[in-house]
């Protein structure tokens, strides 16, 4: 029997980049093929070709042994290929039924929408594949994990046989991710075939039947999950040996640098996003804030850095209350901020690297004398930081927007860490970066901690929080529901806490020490 999907010699050239270089791929019926690669390796391009968004320059696509051309997503769906996007394509104010039927609405007499018919079919699919949803719910009221199920149902409703999952776990809690894996298993058991795109090694080993690694647009090898390990896969992905474990000595924390007391922050709709939050961060300590995205972490960070107003509470930095101070004053006191959205907040993309590297200090000596910018010094600073932080850029004049994501982030890290600081607030410092850059940025953050800097790390990636932090606070619905010593808590417990479930006794990986829990 012919494989359900076969790609032969797919090549796609973009100006200056060979995004896909003669890629061959075979997907058999009823298997999960993991497509592993760094950002920019060409995974997404390949999938966009398969989904009809790009046309390949060379190569052919065979479905069930038949050569087909895909000009648009409609063609792809007709060929039985469906894609679950990283960012859901759902309309929040529509019900599940309405979202599913959108684009192929069944009608009954007189052009009226036939909702019951769709709803019945959704129930049928839901039962068959254990995808629990209520067709009458509004999408906006559903948790993210359930929204993703709706996306999957949309594809099954259109009778897709080949399902592409693009980084599906990025928005999920560990528990939700586990549920997704159960669903994926049940899908392949019933004859569907899945391509699973990710750069998370652990997940690949857990769920895939076969692993294909892509680097710089070309297939660098296949691996069997039962025989591969994380280090070997990372090496294949990056092309060199990677140190996945952050090396970090245990250190006694120093004096109290940041002390947040009963902080309350509301968003623009007066909804309380940070609800009476208190915690301390000491010198030489990394406090990690774990939690699913959207539980108030963004607002917490913005309040600490002065970018949003706090409704009440105190933020003490070295004993001085800085709540609702202007951002520049907070920066000048010796704090640094790696913002969550580097392109929106952290950089001015059309500006050259040199100017972005002095974005927070451009007005001060030696970069300005009076109001006159000293471009010689700005350039000197840039040349030095490009060297020190290994920023891969053609020159200091290159606009930051044309650099890769990893190098853009390095520009921010270089700018923030090169200043004399006592507090670093790093919000999702490695979001969307490749393994090599993550390794580098982690090393830099730990180095800063070792120098005695207090670090507040916010990340929805539980692995990152666990690996870097000395202490971990879990945030859920605007509250910090637990603060634990990093070595004292298991990943499962943290996962439960992230979902808002506080276990009676916090399970520890080993040992017997009791941990503090706050409510």
């Amino acid at each position, binding site marked *: 029997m012919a494989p359900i999907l076969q790609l032969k010699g797919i090549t796609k050239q973009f*100006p200056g980049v060979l995004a896909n270089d003669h890629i061959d791929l075979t997907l058999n019926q009823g298997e999960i093929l993991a497509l592993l690669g760094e950002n920019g390796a060409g995974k997404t391009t390949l999938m966009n070709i398969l989904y009809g968004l790009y046309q390949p320059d060379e190569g052919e696509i065979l479905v069930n042994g038949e050569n087909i051309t895909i000009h648009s997503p409609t063609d792809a769906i007709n060929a039985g290929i469906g894609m679950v996007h990283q960012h859901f394509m759902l309309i929040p104010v529509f019900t599940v039924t309405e979202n599913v039927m959108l684009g192929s609405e069944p009608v009954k007499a007189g052009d009226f929408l036939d909702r019951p018919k769709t709803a019945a079919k959704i129930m049928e699919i839901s039962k068959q594949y254990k995808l629990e949803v209520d067709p009458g719910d509004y999408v906006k009221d559903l948790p993210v994990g359930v929204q993703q199920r709706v996306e999957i149902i949309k594809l099954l409703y259109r009778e897709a046989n080949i399902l592409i999952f693009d980084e599906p776990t990025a928005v999920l809690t560990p528990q939700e991710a586990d549920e997704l894996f159960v669903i994926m298993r049940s899908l392949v058991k019933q004859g569907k075939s899945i391509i699973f795109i990710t750069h998370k090694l652990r997940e690949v080993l857990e769920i895939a039947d076969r692993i294909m690694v892509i680097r710089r647009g070309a297939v660098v090898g296949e691996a069997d999950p039962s025989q591969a390990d994380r280090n070997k896969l990372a090496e294949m992905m990056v092309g060199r040996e990677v140190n996945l474990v952050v090396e970090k000595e245990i250190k006694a924390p120093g004096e109290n640098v940041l002390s947040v007391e009963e902080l309350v922050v509301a968003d623009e709709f007066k909804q309380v996003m940070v609800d009476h939050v208190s915690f301390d961060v000491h010198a030489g300590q990394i406090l990690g804030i774990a939690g699913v995205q959207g539980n108030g972490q963004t607002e917490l960070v913005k309040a600490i*850095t002065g*970018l949003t107003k706090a409704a009440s509470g105190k933020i003490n930095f070295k004993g001085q209350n800085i709540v609702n101070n*202007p*951002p*520049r*004053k907070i*920066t000048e006191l010796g704090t640094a*901020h790696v*913002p969550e959205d580097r392109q*929106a*907040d*952290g*950089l*001015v*993309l*059309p*500006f*050259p690297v*040199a*100017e972005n590297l002095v*974005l*927070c200090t*451009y*007005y001060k000596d030696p970069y*300005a004398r009076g*109001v*006159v*910018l000293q*471009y*010689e010094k*700005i*350039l000197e600073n840039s040349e030095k930081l490009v060297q020190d932080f290994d920023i891969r850029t*053609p*020159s200091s*004049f*290159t*606009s930051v*927007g*044309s650099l890769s994501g990893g190098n853009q982030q390095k520009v921010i890290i270089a700018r923030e860490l090169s200043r004399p600081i006592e507090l670093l607030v790093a919000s999702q410092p490695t979001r969307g970066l490749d393994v090599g850059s993550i390794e580098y940025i982690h090393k830099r953050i730990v180095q800063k901690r070792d120098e005695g800097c207090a670090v507040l790390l916010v990340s929805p990636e539980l692995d990152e929080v666990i690996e870097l932090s000395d202490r971990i606070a879990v945030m859920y619905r605007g509250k910090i529901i637990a603060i634990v010593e990093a070595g004292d808590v298991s990943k499962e417990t943290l996962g439960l806490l992230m979902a808002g479930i506080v276990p009676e006794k916090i399970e520890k990986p080993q040992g017997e020490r009791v941990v503090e829990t706050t409510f």
Partner: protein
Amino acid sequence: MDKKDLEKQDLGKAILEDLTGSEPQVKKKKRGVWKTLQIPALAILTGLLLGAILIMATSFTVYDAFKVSFWKGLGTAFTEVGEAYLALITGSLGNPVEIVSALLYGDTLDFRNAINPILESLVQSTPYIFAGLACALGFRAGLFNIGVEGQLFIGAAAATFVGYSLTGLPPYIHMPLAFLAGALGGALWGMVPGLLKATTGGHEVINCIMMNYIAYRFTTYLLTGPMSRPGTGGMPVSPLIEKSAWIPQFFKTPIRFHLGFFIALGFAALVWWVLFKTTWGLNLRTVGTNPRAARYAGMNIIATTIIGMAASGALAGMAGANEILAVNRSMAIGLSAGYGFDSIALALLGNSHPVGVIFAALLFGVLKNGATKMMVVSTIPIDIVTILQAVILIFVAAPAIIRSIYKLKQPKMETAAAITLSGWGGVK
């Protein structure tokens, strides 16, 4: 000196290259310049071609000739276009034959007449430079200053008032004072929408348009009331300004070429220096390009928005003051030939860069001056020239059209468009 030292010399220049989308590497420089210029150049060419068709299609002489025979019609059509464009060129840049004969045989008046066209083009360009700078500065700050026209009127009124009401001042005090009054008037008028945007979030485009209407009616009131010239029977004209407030013209009649042109160039240099060499400029450009990053960097967005609009208004006010003090010497209703609105297109054409604005303003001045001559020589109405300008602008403002006609590739970043778009709701 190696390459690195060369680069170090002028980061501002490198930034300019970067902003215009050309490559910073020295070896690629030539291609960079061509890349920057190809869209405007092709836009002008396409505009002229379309204009030629327009001239043919609207000429009765051509229609009459076609009645005789097809070939005669075609011949006449091309002669018409040739004559018109020749008039456009000699009318705006001068006729070499005339210049040479004036030099050899004529008196000084003949010579002045011969070189007048090109100098007159510069006179026509001057208000465009000021107004274009006003818009460009606005764009850089993420503001769409569509109120240049109104600011220009207020600036002109302020300059006129200082120009005629103060007497007995020496020229070196009176002229700068009147000019500054014009700048101040424009700045105040521009600051209002800036203030409204910064404090209430009201969009500057709407408020600027409203401020334009207020400015028109307000100046009409001034010219018919408090500032009217006695003895004109209610004509909306101001008194003549004092001679001490005149911006001096360099030559005798008919040449009107004046110091204002160099003042405009001076301000272009100043705007360039402020934008690309000072902390104010970096602040302004950051707020204009990415207000969220500006906030993150601790910049004061409210102050920048207000100051940006005021500075833009000041330049617009100078355009008005220049026309009064250097050319008209008194204020009348028909002061501006739509400089304020042309300047938006002009800033776009010049990629919101002071140097680009100068070249775009020169082009506008040449076209406008040449058009007048074209109208005199041939039978082509000035409206056709206005349409010609509009067509060129459409092509410049919509580079996608030019690119699709000439099959050019999409550049990396469409700076001008990005800057312009950010004016629409970019800054809160």
